[in-house]
Every structure is written in structure tokens, then in C-alpha cells.
């Protein structure tokens, strides 16, 4: 252990300091082992990785939702513009034929289309939540990466990782965050239906 810590060319530090540091590291290693901290550290590191995945899932899903809304708003605005154009034509026709009621109706359509457009703009702007929350999520993900990195480093010093040992999964896992490469989950409704059909449901 101490060999890992001693730098190649220490400047101004005495060898005793590094020897002392090496001993402290050894003691930390033994203490962590005795307390059974290693396995808990491993579990924490894994939880952090899982938490990062879940945050990215939130980021992706909110992004997709905002995207869908923006597309719908753009299409609805086109419809609104068509209503406005039709109302203008109706107003002109009413004007030519001297039909006051038609003109009034056209004016009403105009006013409603304008209000609709205003509300659609509000809906469009409200999608900025994705940018704002996404920035916060990115910061938390960066923090989780730092923490995970530190934990893994501590873990490597305390004890070698034991592959193949995983904690028991929670009773309910929630949405699948990374469906690719997973055989224990379905990735869409088609697979749900297939699975149920294969079981005779």
C-alpha cells in the first residue's frame, strides 16, 4: 500500500512522513475490513451509479415530452393561422354582401384565434422547464460521478472488488432506464403483449 502513495520525487518531504502515511493507510484498510465497510461502500457506489441512470432517464423523458408538446404547438399554431385567414375572408365576404352578422362572426373567430395563439405561445415557452431542470440534473449527475469516483478509489484501497456478488433487487424496480442489453425486462408494449400471449393470456 505504502508504495502506491510515495511519490517518485518528493520535494522537501521526509521519508518518515511517507512511511507514517503508509502505516495509516494500512490501518485504514484493516479497520475498513474489520468493520465490514467494504461491502457497504460497494453497495453505495452501485447505488450512486443507479441513481445517475435514473436522473438521466428523467432528463430524457422530460426532453421527449417537451419535444412532443413543441411539435403539437407548432401544428396547432398552423391551424390557428388557417382559422385567422378564413375569418379574414369571411369578413371580406360579409363586407361585400353587407351581412353584418357574418362580419360579427368573423370578428369573433379572429379574436378567439388570436387568444388561442397567445395561449399556445405560453405553452411553448413553458417547455423551458426542460432546459432549467436539465441543467440542475446535469449538476447532480456530475456530483454523483465525483462521489462514485471517490468511493471506488476508497474501495480499491480497502479491498479488491468481488465480482458476481450483487445485492438483492428491490421488490419493484420501476421503469426500465436502459432496456438495451437487458434480458430480464421488456422494452415496449409489443414485448409485453408477446410475453402475455406466449403464456396463453
Amino acid at each position: 500500500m505504502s508504495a502506491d502513495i510515495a511519490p517518485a520525487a518528493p520535494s522537501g518531504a521526509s521519508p518518515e512522513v511517507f512511511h507514517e502515511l503508509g502505516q495509516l493507510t494500512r490501518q485504514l484498510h484493516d479497520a475498513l475490513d474489520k468493520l465490514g465497510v467494504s461491502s457497504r461502500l460497494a453497495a453505495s457506489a452501485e447505488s450512486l451509479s443507479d441513481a445517475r441512470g435514473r436522473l438521466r432517464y428523467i432528463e430524457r423523458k422530460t426532453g421527449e415530452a417537451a419535444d412532443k408538446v413543441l411539435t403539437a404547438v407548432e401544428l396547432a399554431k398552423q391551424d390557428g393561422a388557417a382559422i385567422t385567414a378564413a375569418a379574414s375572408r369571411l369578413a371580406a365576404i360579409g363586407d361585400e354582401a353587407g351581412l353584418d352578422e357574418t362580419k360579427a362572426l368573423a370578428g369573433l373567430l379572429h379574436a378567439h384565434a388570436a387568444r388561442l395563439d397567445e395561449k399556445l405561445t405560453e405553452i411553448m415557452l413553458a417547455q423551458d422547464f426542460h432546459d432549467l431542470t436539465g441543467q440542475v440534473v446535469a449538476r447532480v449527475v456530475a456530483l454523483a460521478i465525483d462521489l462514485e469516483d471517490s468511493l471506488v478509489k476508497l474501495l480499491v484501497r480497502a479491498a479488491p472488488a468481488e465480482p458476481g456478488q450483487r445485492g438483492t433487487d428491490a421488490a419493484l424496480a420501476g421503469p426500465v432506464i436502459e432496456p438495451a442489453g437487458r434480458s430480464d425486462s421488456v422494452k415496449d408494449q409489443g414485448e409485453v403483449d408477446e410475453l402475455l400471449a406466449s403464456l396463453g393470456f
Partner: protein
Amino acid sequence: MDLRSTEDAVNPPAQLKFLVVDDFATMRRIVRGLLREIGWTDVDEAEDGAVALHMLRNGKYDFVVSDVNMPNMTGFELLKAIRGDASLKHLPVLMVTAEARKEDILLAAQTGASGYVVKPFTKATLEEKVQRILQKLAAPA
């Protein structure tokens, strides 16, 4: 249209070419949508400062709307690069960002930002800031 040699660029909305810079596609789409509603339909997008700078050096743009916090090259770095480039230094740059700290706003002003809008913002705010910048540019020096 070259703003630097034109004084009647403001009313009605002239056909200016915008570059919207933001790492979030949602926000680029919102800003593009708002600019279109105001009357500017010629809008390109870049996902960070580095991409934006490349586009600015290889195309003709009249106005930049940029986020601040972006990977690769931040909005402040982009702004600095624009102001340090002889062919781009007069380009209007409006910062649109969630960074609301006073020191950031001051830094933007010192670096040469033409305006600063804090997210979340309204259509009226964006329009007012863009118009104000254009009016200043169009006014005789």
C-alpha cells in the same frame, strides 16, 4: 442584410439571419419559434460555442442569441472570441441564460454582450431586447 451599414433595419422586422446557440434542443426550438412569431424566420442553430464560432466564420449572420452554460465552449468564451475577431466583432450578441448571478451579468457586459436575458423569459422580453439592440445599431454613431 448588413446591419452595420443600414439604418432602417428595425421596422418592419427586416430579414435578418439569426444564430441561436444553446446545448438544449428544447430551448433552441423555443427561441426559434419566438423569433418566427416576431417575424424573423431565417434562424440557424448551434449546440455549443465552438460549433457556433465555426458557423459564424463560415456564414453570414446578423444576430447571435446565445446561452452561457454549454459544454466545449461556453457562451462567455464564444462572446470573447466574437469580440476578438475582426470580421465578427460588431455582431450583436444577446445572452439568454439561466445564470442569474450578478457577477455573471457583469462579466457578460464587460466581455461585450449586447444584451442579457435571464431564463425563464417571455416573448415580450425577448422581442424588446432584440429590438433595442437593433435600434442601437441602426442609430447613427
